[in-house]
């Protein structure tokens, strides 16, 4: 293992920003009071919780601070949004979501199907774009909620959530957005999106793990998942995770600072494009997965034909580079990622897909080094691959291999 890690897996999790850590530390030591207590030692902490709520509300463009509900993370936020809505509209038994959602939504929907709900999974095309007309056509009087992600975690492809938001508003259907992969990368404004609910997770934008938010628009009908104390207006009981809340508030401030710094924003895109173009031009078996233009700036998903993703990751790991793969082997399942399969990426390259996800902390040198290492790794694996014709430097024909 290398001493310094080149971390290109920021869609999985991110480094806690130094400012965030700094802001959190006093709440572990000097200021450990419970914000719900009837003494200043605890009560003062409540001001910090409310300050963080305001910071997050500003980042999301929320009208009222109390529309921000702190949770343990996006899995809880997604579950709370969908289950809480279904609990309220008990006579409605239909859910609309997409085929490429995060497991936090997808596996919940599968469970709800077993409980008697019907779920429409909206498909995507070869570039990962959502079939919005299919979504519109699926709506019925029985539809309780539409839940769609803003940006896909594997490809970075953006969905037209604004259009869907306007449609749902007009039809009076609750609309939930899983904005986990969009936040911090593009401006997210709940009023422009016209959503009722929106989930984010702290650790995807340089806050710690274990803190998330569900935005709940004023007037949205929602039952709580948990029952207990009065915290979060009893919408989410449980003693506040004060350090996490302070952390996500500080991280929200940093997001606003980052997104208003056009030079910094452009730099992430420039480095991503440099990496992507470098890989695609140097390696003949490489091609891009996902819509090149409609996606977040930090993500690239490149498929390498004839070689397998976990092996690529292991070789990269030896070189101190951390990335991620949609291959079957790396996830412990036997099939490649549901996202790539929904896009119809052929299995011949889906198994060899690698996702690089950058952050505002990624440097030029790191991309330079990765561009040096990748061809070496890919060529080493091609040399082992039975599907690669080394003499002619091309893949063997698939008909020749099919049996």
């Amino acid at each position, binding site marked *: 293992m290398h001493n310094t890690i080149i971390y290109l897996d920021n869609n999985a999790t991110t480094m806690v920003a130094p400012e965030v850590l700094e802001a959190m530390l006093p709440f572990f030591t000097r200021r450990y009071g419970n914000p719900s207590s009837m003494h200043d030692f605890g009560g003062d902490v409540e001001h910090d919780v409310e300050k963080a709520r305001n910071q997050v509300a500003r980042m999301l463009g929320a009208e009222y601070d109390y529309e921000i509900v702190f949770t343990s993370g996006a899995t809880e936020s997604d579950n709370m949004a969908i289950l809480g809505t279904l609990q309220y509209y008990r006579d409605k038994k239909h859910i609309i979501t997409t085929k490429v959602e995060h497991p936090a939504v997808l596996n919940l929907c599968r469970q709800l199907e077993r409980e008697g709900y019907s779920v429409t999974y909206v498909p995507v095309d070869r570039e990962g774009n959502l079939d919005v007309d299919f979504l519109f056509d699926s709506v019925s009087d029985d539809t309780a909620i539409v839940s769609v992600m803003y940006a896909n975690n594997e490809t970075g492809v953006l969905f037209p959530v604004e259009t869907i938001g306007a449609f749902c508003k007009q039809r009076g259907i609750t609309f939930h957005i899983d904005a986990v992969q969009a936040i911090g990368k593009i401006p997210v404004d709940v009023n422009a999106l016209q959503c009722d609910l929106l989930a984010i997770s702290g650790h995807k934008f340089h806050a710690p793990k274990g803190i998330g938010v569900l935005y709940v628009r004023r007037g949205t009908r929602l039952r709580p998942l948990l029952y207990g104390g009065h915290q979060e207006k009893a919408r989410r009981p449980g003693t506040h995770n004060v350090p996490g809340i302070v952390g996500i508030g500080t991280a929200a401030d940093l997001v606003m600072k980052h997104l208003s710094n056009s030079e910094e924003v452009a730099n992430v895109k420039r480095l991503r494009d440099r990496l992507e173009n470098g890989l695609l031009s140097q390696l003949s078996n490489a091609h891009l997965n996902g819509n090149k233009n409609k996606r977040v700036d930090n993500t690239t998903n490149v498929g390498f034909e*004839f*070689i*397998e*993703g*976990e*092996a690529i990751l*292991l*070789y990269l790991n*030896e070189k101190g580079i951390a990335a991620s793969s949609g*291959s*079957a*082997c*790396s996830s*412990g*399942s*036997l*099939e*490649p990622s549901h996202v790539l399969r929904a896009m119809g990426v052929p*299995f*011949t390259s889906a*198994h060899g897909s690698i996702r690089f996800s950058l952050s505002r902390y990624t440097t030029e040198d790191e991309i330079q080094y990765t561009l040096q290492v990748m061809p070496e790794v890919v060529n080493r694996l091609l*040399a*082992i*691959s*039975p*599907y690669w014709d080394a003499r002619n430097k091309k893949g063997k024909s*698939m008909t020749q*291999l*099919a*049996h």
Partner: protein
Amino acid sequence: MWEYTDKVKELYTNPKNVGEISDADVVVEVGSIVCGDALTLYLKLDGDIIVDAKFKTFGCGSAIASSSALTEMIKGKTIEEASMITNKDIVDFLGGLPDQKMHCSVMGQEALEKAIKKIKGETIEDEHEDEGAVICQCFGVTENVIRRVIRENNLTTVEDVTNYTKAGGACGSCIPKIEDILKEELASVVAQPAATTMKPMSNIKRMQLVEETIHNVIRPVLMRDGGDIDLVDIEGKKVYVALRGHCAHCVVSDVTMKNLVEDTLKEFVENDIEVIEVK
């Protein structure tokens, strides 16, 4: 992140015997790019001795390591010796594989088996015909492969079968069929010891059964935890064994002796077997 052994890491980082043999006597392919792993095995023979073995693999780290291990293991062996190698031997050579990666070792064994059939001139025009009905359509896994792997590795659950053969790992529609096969195989395993305890046993028969049980049932369980067992001696109904590897230093080795070794031998051989540990 997978917990790969140092041997696995060594063999995927610097795999041995990668490549093709231009004048190979046998070339076989197993797996496919669609399934996510595939192996092409090249063998060069001198008489009935495998003088060279090379491979090319499409697959993850453990698939590369398993292929490399296989070629290392068979080089210099006679065809007869090589034909005794099972997927478990490949796993042992690697010092273990994560449960979900066992199918990589099975792929190695399949390639070897196919190669040996080819050498012996047995027809393998339609391997699926030859191996019984295809149970898992997604990964093309046949009934015979599933039955063999269940027997050789003492598998007991559908999850085990999926880990070892991939069968049932995609759409899952064949899981009921796998459950049926498992039930049949487990029933036949249970039936065996019952039959043998009915009649008085000869010393030779007893020794043979003790050896088989240790090899097929007890050792695989111990190996999962990094241990092993040696059969030292058999004297009437007294069986002398020594625990090796992790088991030897394990604080619960007495429990292992009593619960696992003695109880298993009682179940599979005779119910008045006594096990004595030799340190």
